[in-house]
């Protein structure tokens, strides 16, 4: 067994893995908080099965949580873990392919018995059969050490094993010199009502930490404190994409000075937005859990019709069910926010795995000529601003807006510089004053919006519906020319959104060589890959689209300044098709659909293949 120590770095990638019932996600979340308190930049990747409590010890029941943290500018959870901590044989074998050779693996040696090996479909013990020779393996009897620790608190052997995640967490906190105070506080609050459980868990956390300090691991391992990140002087917090999106809705409602109604039906991975928004009536937000996806979007449309900001949220399969109703909102010109936390498809697909494969659905997926604006968030924290932008567009133009996020950024967390709402412009809308009068279907010449006249107003009593309406009066119309005019209007209305968008700019890089054009959650990976390749002297740039429909007006001119263009996506090639249609360029594509965030190394390899060196630029200067 080789004993390569962990190299000294400014940032590390750690992966926690175990059974879905082992509390792995909790372990990861607490480590995340500790890392933030330690002043690190960070990005996380919760990676768990759809089964809530899969049979113990099976490969498909393995839950994992990966975090990259430290003093660097971190935008991804990292391609390859420096350290894996595996609480059972299945967690080891499932995650082994992610590790580079020489990586450090902590295993719970108590878990490698005949029965558990069989559960993991292993015919021999990897701790003994030489299959781990390329790794720095550290065997720790985590289970029995945990049981020993919590014995004095009078817990049974089964209950005591439930503390082993915190024991292992304590050991990792020792290894990376992370503060334990936040976790200790959390344990005290969580188990405050049961002193026995509270004290046992605190003891387990501290014992894991003490084990690192006292046991002779030094020939293999020693503490690796990481430098603090170079952060701007302000307040930060960690938050997930789902939390950021929910807060974006809360903020947008306030910026529009209008109450917001969030109507949804539970679905993975979108439900946490609903959970975050409950109980916030005093912040102007109410939630309605509908009987199904269709009722959810319909109730949101009803809310918008009655003057609130109607929002519905789901994932691909649920969005498919909402499709007809979205058409109704287009026909009746009502503001509506549709959030799609994308997951691997088709059909049920892989509910807990990420993908970007609903772009076609968002842009094209309705009957009739039914365009809507489509936006995509690029990171957990970016969900906040993108959500505010989506609400702004919906209210300004009186249109449904699709907001795309995905399972990765919905669940992942990062450090967020907390904004002040006073720094944002108010969100405007065209609701008539109490004493106003006129026609509901008068239009703003620039936004093409109609009035948002709602029931209760005595001067705008009107009827509206899904049947084609007369462009002036709003009454039912089957007139041929009128339908042409209304179709043109609906198209032009979405086009006018582009008039309000800022010019598309480079995230990073130089003009002339290769442009990497991406959207949504691949931002972090593309950012890292482009930075690395720029440092190698390649002529590459990163362009990241928030606005998918309409595209920014200057995009075609911007892309014309590059020799070649690469479009990496977590789908089989959807944005690339849209760009071929709308921008008409020769485009390269990179497509990854394995349920994981975009692999940085793969993208770097492709960039190296396509991007020229920056020799000319250097000689010109």
């Amino acid at each position, binding site marked *: 067994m080789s004993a390569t120590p962990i190299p000294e770095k400014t940032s590390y990638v750690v992966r926690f893995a175990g059974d879905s019932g082992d509390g792995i996600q909790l372990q990861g979340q607490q480590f995340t908080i500790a890392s933030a308190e330690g002043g690190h930049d960070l990005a996380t990747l919760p990676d768990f099965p759809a089964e809530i409590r899969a049979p113990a010890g099976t490969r498909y029941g393995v839950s994992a949580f990966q975090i990259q943290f430290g003093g660097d500018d971190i935008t991804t959870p990292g391609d390859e873990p420096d350290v894996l901590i595996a609480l059972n044989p299945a967690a080891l074998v499932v995650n082994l392919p992610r590790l580079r050779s020489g990586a450090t693996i902590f295993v719970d040696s108590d878990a490698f018995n005949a029965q558990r090996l069989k559960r993991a479909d292993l015919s021999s013990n990897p701790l003994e059969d030489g299959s781990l020779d390329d790794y720095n393996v550290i065997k720790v009897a985590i289970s029995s050490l945990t049981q020993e620790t919590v014995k004095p608190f009078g817990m049974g052997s089964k209950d005591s094993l439930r503390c082993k995640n915190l024991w292992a967490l304590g050991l990792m906190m020792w290894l990376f010199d992370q503060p334990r105070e936040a976790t200790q506080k959390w344990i005290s609050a969580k188990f405050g009502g049961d002193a026995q459980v509270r004290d046992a868990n605190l003891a387990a956390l501290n014992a894991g930490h003490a084990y690192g300090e006292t046991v002779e691991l030094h020939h293999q391992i020693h503490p690796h404190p990481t430098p603090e990140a170079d952060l701007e002087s302000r307040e930060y917090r960690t938050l997930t994409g789902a939390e950021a999106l929910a807060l974006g809705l809360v903020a947008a409602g306030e910026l529009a000075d209008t109450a917001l109604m969030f109507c949804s039906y539970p679905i993975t991975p979108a439900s946490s937005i609903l959970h975050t928004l409950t109980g916030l009536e005093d912040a102007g937000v109410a939630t309605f859990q509908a009987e199904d996806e269709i009722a959810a979007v319909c109730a949101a449309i009803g809310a*918008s019709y009655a003057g609130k900001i109607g929002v519905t949220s789901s994932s691909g399969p649920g969005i498919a069910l909402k499709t007809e109703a979205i058409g109704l909102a287009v026909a009746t010109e009502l503001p509506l926010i549709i959030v799609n936390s994308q997951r691997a498809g088709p059909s049920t697909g892989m509910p807990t795995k990420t993908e970007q494969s609903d772009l076609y659905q968002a842009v094209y997926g309705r009957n009739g000529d039914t365009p809507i604006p489509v936006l995509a968030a690029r990171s957990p924290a970016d969900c906040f601003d993108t959500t505010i932008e989506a609400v702004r567009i919906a209210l300004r133009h009186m249109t449904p807006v699709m907001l795309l996020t995905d399972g990765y950024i919905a669940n992942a967390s990062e450090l967020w510089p907390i904004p002040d709402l006073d720094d944002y412009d108010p969100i405007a809308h065209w609701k008539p004053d109490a004493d106003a009068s006129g026609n509901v279907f008068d239009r703003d010449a620039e936004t093409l919006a109609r009035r948002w006249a709602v029931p209760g107003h005595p001067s705008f009593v009107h009827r509206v519906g899904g049947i084609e309406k007369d462009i002036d009066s709003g009454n*039912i119309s089957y007139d041929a020319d009128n339908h042409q005019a209304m179709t043109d209007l609906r198209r032009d209305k979405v086009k006018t959104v582009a008039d309000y968008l800022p010019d598309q700019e480079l995230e990073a890089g130089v003009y002339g060589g290769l442009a990497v054009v991406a959207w949504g959650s691949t931002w972090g990976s593309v950012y890292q890959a482009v930075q690395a390749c720029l440092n190698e002297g390649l002529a590459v740039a990163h362009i990241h689209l928030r606005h998918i429909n309409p595209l920014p007006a200057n995009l075609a001119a911007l892309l014309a300044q590059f020799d070649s263009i690469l479009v990496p996506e977590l789908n089989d090639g959807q944005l690339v098709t849209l760009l071929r249609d709308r921008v008409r360029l020769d485009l390269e594509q990179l497509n990854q659909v394995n349920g994981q965030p975009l692999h940085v190394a793969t993208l770097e390899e492709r960039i190296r293949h396509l991007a020229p060196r920056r020799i000319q630029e250097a000689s010109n200067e």
Partner: protein
Amino acid sequence: MSELSFKDYATDQEVRWCPGCGDYSILKAVQKTLADLKADRANTVFVSGIGCSSRLPYYVDTYGFHTIHGRAPAVATGVKLANPDLDVWVVTGDGDGLSIGGNHLLHALRRNVNLNILLFNNEIYGLTKGQYSPTSRIGTTSPSSPTGSIDAPIHPGVFALGAGASFFARAVDIDQKGLPPVLAAARAHQGAALVEILQNCIVYNKDVFDDVVAKKTAAETQIQVQHGERLIYGTNRNKGLRLNPQTLSLESVILGEDGVSEADILVHDETNPTLAQMLLSLEAPLPAAMGIIHRVDKPAFESSFWDHKPTQRRARVNDLLRRGNLLDRR
């Protein structure tokens, strides 16, 4: 305010139902009800789905929303939750409300959202040209069931009771005397009120309810129920409904025969769901129960929806942004 007439609630739109359609008389009864109650146009909303019945909002001069097939209860729920001060009506049919939209009707009733739901039941799909519907009787011949339908019909009232509805009434389209008071009662009810209106589709299912509604025999084939009054009917008002404890069902008896006296006749209790179930299960030759069959007080869903009004919302939102694990690097 001077007296209003049904015409005061008519729009300038040409009504486009078939000549002789039962919908005309329902529309008139709705407009009359609004006029009688001096309903505020601005605060009244009619929400409908798809089908012949669902065109009604275009003809009533209030706010109106013609939505998509089956979804009117869901849209109306959103409207009512967004603004509980509005008087929200849902207009649907047997196909719209009990077939494609059955789920939403079920949940609107279960939640007890304060909606006035009018279900036009003509036991046929009219707008798609005459296919059998979920309330069509077994054996209904139609373009999609040329040898007679084989699936059992659903009974709107039994469906409503099963969903926990707090109000169910039944009325006849052309009954300009009986229908408006039922509509007014539905409007007054604090909760989901379902009114089944037997509607005559003269093109595709003409006179399907004749065995119940034909004028000549109506006194024998219908029983108008009134809370607190005995279940008496008949041309000579000499028939009544009595509970048969052996079969646990209602039976028709004649006053003065076989020693039957008024005291033997059941008194209608609209709060009793078991009695409602029995009244809804009556089949010929027993009379069909009409009027308010079931009505109980339950809290309306929207009454506890907006628990707290926002005060100092900006400060509250800024506070929410700072929730969680703060890292102060100032």
